[in-house]
């Protein structure tokens, strides 16, 4: 990354701390196409480290899904409610620092790469503990009064969460280049078994799963990547890390490859969350089916020339995995 970025962050930090601050040891940590994630140290004029920090930035405003200041505000609410997530120092959409919006947070040490996370969890025998910590974290997040969330946060009209999930899935299904009897069957099942609209809509993260977690020997340290946070059905959130692909081959441990369901559910309920097996299973099935439609879409982008790469092409040949998984979600062992 360029010196300009270091200079820009340094300028922002100097204003934040009210004294001259420099950035050293800037290291880019993900090769994501959209977001820039980097770790660095903030040092004072004497070169003493003030804080070890992390930067989350977008190169420009065009690719912003929702304002980064909104995401940062939600993360701060979550942090204050006791959800393990890095404390935000500040966020800005002022383009003069780096040419794009960004926020800066504290830096938390630990493992994030899924297979390494599972190895670490296995080595220290902390799978059940991680599931319990995840359950408790979700309960805390879902108990935040959604009225406190920024007004710009994506929120469906009251009483339309289930309906709009079904309508959106139907639209995706229609885009398949080759019809899928398994997905059609799955969507019909989802319609016939639709749960009531949730009694409470809450803040949801929408992408909590192995890969967006920082895990250490002590267990769950932080939940990352709040880019998709919005208002929704809390059951959607708790179901997502249970989708088979997020188990990373630990298929017999439904909660992210960490543990069986019981301790996860118990911890969620003990911390005040409301869990309904049927509702969680419904979202688990929907999440699985939608992932399959997403893979199909990746192959369409390759075929249409929009985004040509062998990796996206290969996604089309993964669709049958998700057809199978969807069918298994409907029946189970």
């Amino acid at each position, binding site marked *: 990354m360029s010196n300009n970025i270091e200079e820009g962050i340094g300028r922002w930090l100097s204003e934040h701390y009210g004294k001259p601050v420099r950035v050293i040891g800037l290291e880019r940590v993900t090769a994501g196409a959209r977001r820039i994630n980097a770790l660095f140290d903030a040092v004072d004029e004497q070169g003493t480290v003030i804080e070890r920090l992390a930067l989350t930035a977008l190169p420009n405003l065009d690719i912003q899904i929702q304002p980064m200041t909104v995401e940062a505000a939600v993360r701060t609410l979550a942090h204050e409610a006791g959800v393990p997530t890095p404390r935000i120092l500040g966020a800005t959409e002022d383009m003069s620092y780096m040419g794009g919006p960004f926020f800066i947070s504290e830096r938390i040490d630990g493992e994030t790469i899924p297979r390494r996370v599972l190895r670490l969890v296995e080595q220290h025998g902390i799978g059940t503990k991680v599931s319990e910590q995840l359950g408790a974290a979700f309960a805390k997040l879902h108990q935040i009064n959604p009225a406190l969330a920024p007004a710009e946060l994506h929120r469906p009209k009251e009483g339309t969460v289930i309906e709009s999930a079904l309508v959106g899935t139907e639209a995706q*299904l229609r885009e398949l280049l*080759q*019809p*899928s*009897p*398994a*997905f*059609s*069957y799955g*969507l*019909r099942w989802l319609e016939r078994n639709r749960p009531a609209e949730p009694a409470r809509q809450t803040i949801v993260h929408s992408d909590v799963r192995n890969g967006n977690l920082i895990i250490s020997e002590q267990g769950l340290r932080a939940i990352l990547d709040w880019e998709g946070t919005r208002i929704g059905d809390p059951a959607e959130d708790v179901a997502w890390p*249970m989708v*088979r692909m997020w188990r990373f081959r630990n*298929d*017999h441990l*439904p909660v992210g490859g960490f543990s*069986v*369901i*019981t301790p996860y*559910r118990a911890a969620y309920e003990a911390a005040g969350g409301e869990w309904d*097996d049927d509702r969680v*299973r419904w979202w688990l099935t929907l999440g699985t089916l939608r992932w399959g439609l997403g893979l199909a879409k990746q192959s369409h982008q390759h075929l249409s020339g929009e985004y040509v*790469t*062998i*990796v996206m*092409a*290969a996604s089309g*040949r*993964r669709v*049958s*995995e998700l*057809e*199978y*998984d969807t*069918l*298994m*979600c*409907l*029946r*189970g*062992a």
Partner: protein
Amino acid sequence: MQYRPTAAELLRDISTLLSDEVLDQVSVEVQHKVRVAANIAQILEREVQLSGPNAQREFETTRDLLGVPAGDTAPLIELRARLADALRQGELPGRDDDEVWHALVQIARDDLAISKPGHDSWTGDDWSRVS
């Protein structure tokens, strides 16, 4: 008729070349793509061997589920579309849900034998022991 190697044999050769020789010689950014390409060559090798019998079985299963009359010569792709439509709308006449589910699972298993053997070792979660 082409002389040997067969298509399947050549696809195996391509996969081996990519994994054993090319992978180490390319930059980190390209390595992932090379792995994907090697895997695709393996998928195609299995497809060459299995797609004939698999397609025939799916064709017969789908005709049976739909109750297609003997004179109807619609190809598999057309039958799939009809089946998907019918399932989207509701039950198939004279078929119980269990039978339909098992048929769809068999079709998916046949597809997985090509695209990802072993993926069907998991048969769903046991929710009876939750809570």
